[in-house]
Each structure stands twice: as C-alpha cells, then as structure tokens.
C-alpha cells in the first residue's frame, strides 16, 4: 500500500471512528434535535429513514421472488424429456412417425405448417414420452 494512501486511510478511519463515537454519546432527544437542525424537520428525517429501510426490504423481496421463479423454471426445464432438446426438424420427424400410427393427422399438419409453436411441440413430445409412445430420446420404445 502506498504510504500516503495508507496515511489518508488511517486519517479517514480515525475520523469515522471519532464521529461514530460522537453519535453514540448523543441521547435520543439530542438525535431528534440534530435531525431537526440538519433536515429542518425531525419527522421528515424519520419518514425518509423509514422509506430507506422499506426500499431495501422491497428490493430484496423482489430479488427473492425472481430467484424463486428462476429456480422453478429451471426445475420445470430440468424435468422435461431429453427429446425436447433435439433440433426442431428431428422433433417434427418424431411426431410424424408417431402420428403415422394411430395418431390423428391434424397434429402433424399443424406442426409441419408452423401453426404449432416449438413450445407446443415440446409439450406434445413430453406427453408422448409419458404415454410410452416414444422413449426419452424420441425413439420407439
């Protein structure tokens, strides 16, 4: 550490420590009186401070919620069959092959002409795995 910088750091540490101790020596009434001087209105200072705390609580709550959503989404994605990770053309080929059996042709047509989204296709593939019509990799069981 550069000695000048180290010296400045020590000076600022001493300053912080001394002020910190001064704050401790003030009674509650003196703190409120200080707020009236510094903010013009102690009530306003108190309200602002409550808002600062509430702001952090709200932000942390939102972050926790988003993290929970991400974890849920990851769980859902992780629970899906391997077949949904295949390229789109291969997914369509799997559906066509299955539909060529007892499945109706409408689904195949919808998938082929693009009126079904890839999400729809993935859901269908998941269902086919659950029904035992294909295995995890999209092959006939």
């Amino acid at each position: 550490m550069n000695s000048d910088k180290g010296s400045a750091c020590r000076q600022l540490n001493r300053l912080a420590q001394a002020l910190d101790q001064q704050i401790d020596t003030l009674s509650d009434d003196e703190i409120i009186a200080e707020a009236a001087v510094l903010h013009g209105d102690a009530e306003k200072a108190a309200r602002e401070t409550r808002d600062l705390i509430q702001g952090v609580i709200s932000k942390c709550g939102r972050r926790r919620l988003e993290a929970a959503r991400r974890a849920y989404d990851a769980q859902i994605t992780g629970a899906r069959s391997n077949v949904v990770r295949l390229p789109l053309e291969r997914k369509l080929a799997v559906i066509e092959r299955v539909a060529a059996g007892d499945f109706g042709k409408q689904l195949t047509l919808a998938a082929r002409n693009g009126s079904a989204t890839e999400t729809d296709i993935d859901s269908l593939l998941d269902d086919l795995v659950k029904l035992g019509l294909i295995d995890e990799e999209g092959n006939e069981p």
Partner: protein
Amino acid sequence: MHRPAERAYLDTTAFIAALGTLTDADRIRLRYRAASLAPGTGMQGDDLFQEAVRRALEREDGRRCPCDVPVPAFLSNVMRSIASAEREKYARQVSLDPNDNDCPAGDPHPSHVLDSANARIDLQRIVARLEELFADDPQAQAVLIGTMENWTPVEIRDLEPMDDLQYAAARRRFRRAILNEFGKDGKK
C-alpha cells in the same frame, strides 16, 4: 458433558419485523452513523445504510443477526465493517495515474471524488477536500485535523485557541457539516 448451546439467529422475517420496531431515534441514529462512516468509502451515508440492511437481509458473507444482539448494534457493526473494508480496498489500489498526488480544485462533491472509469477513489483527495470544507471555519477545521491526527482536545485547542463552549460548538459544527455532506445523495 454439556455441549454449549448453539447461538440462535433472527431469520429474515424476524429481522424485518425487528426493523419495524425501531424507534425514530434508532433509525435516525443509524442513518447518521452511516454518514459518519461514509468518508472514503465511495458511498454516501444513505447508500452505506441501505447496503448494510441489504447484506443483513440477504445474509451476505454469512451476516446474520444473533437473537441476543439488538438490531441497531448489529447494523452498526455491519456498516463499520463495510466502511473499513471499502477504505482499505481503495487504499490498496495501485494508481496508474502519474498525476495521482495532484488535487485539482473544483470537484463537485467531496464525498464523490470517484473515478468512475476505474471505480477508484483517491483517499488523499478526500482528506484535502474535507479540509477545504472547513476553510471558512478555522475552529472546526482544527477539530477535523486534530481528529484525523488522533490529537487530544488539549492539542487541538493549542492549534486553535478555544474555550470549553467554543470547543463544544466547533465539534458540533464539524459533526453537522460532515453529516450534511456525506449523508444524503445530492445536496438539499
């Protein structure tokens, strides 16, 4: 043989509830403590205060409030720890600026001597700017310099002769100026 009882900690819900029970004086004292600790951290006091609450809520670095420690005392320690670590961090940064020791006049705000490009603050410039803050008040400036140099009250009053009342008033002006300068983001 008795095993020592494990220390109990407030969970997030209990910590939030405890924050809600703080008195106005508790909250304002915490906020002023944050402003006192802010110089050299690159943060304003209000930012430091919120950062401490956030780290406590998110239990960052394993920070958890023990059930037997009052929340204001816990948060005060978190703020002290953050402030000290930030100043140390900036003190350790190796400057690449050949004019590092220059202290150009006209910085907009003494707490924000922040090089945003490098996320670097120059502690020496903050000390210089603090001294400038009291340029028109030699008694408060003597309190500042004496405090930073760890002088006794007698030594401070040798630098700038003051009777007891004048010394107490100078300390008050010094404290209020710092709280005002390093508290809120931006000037009122």
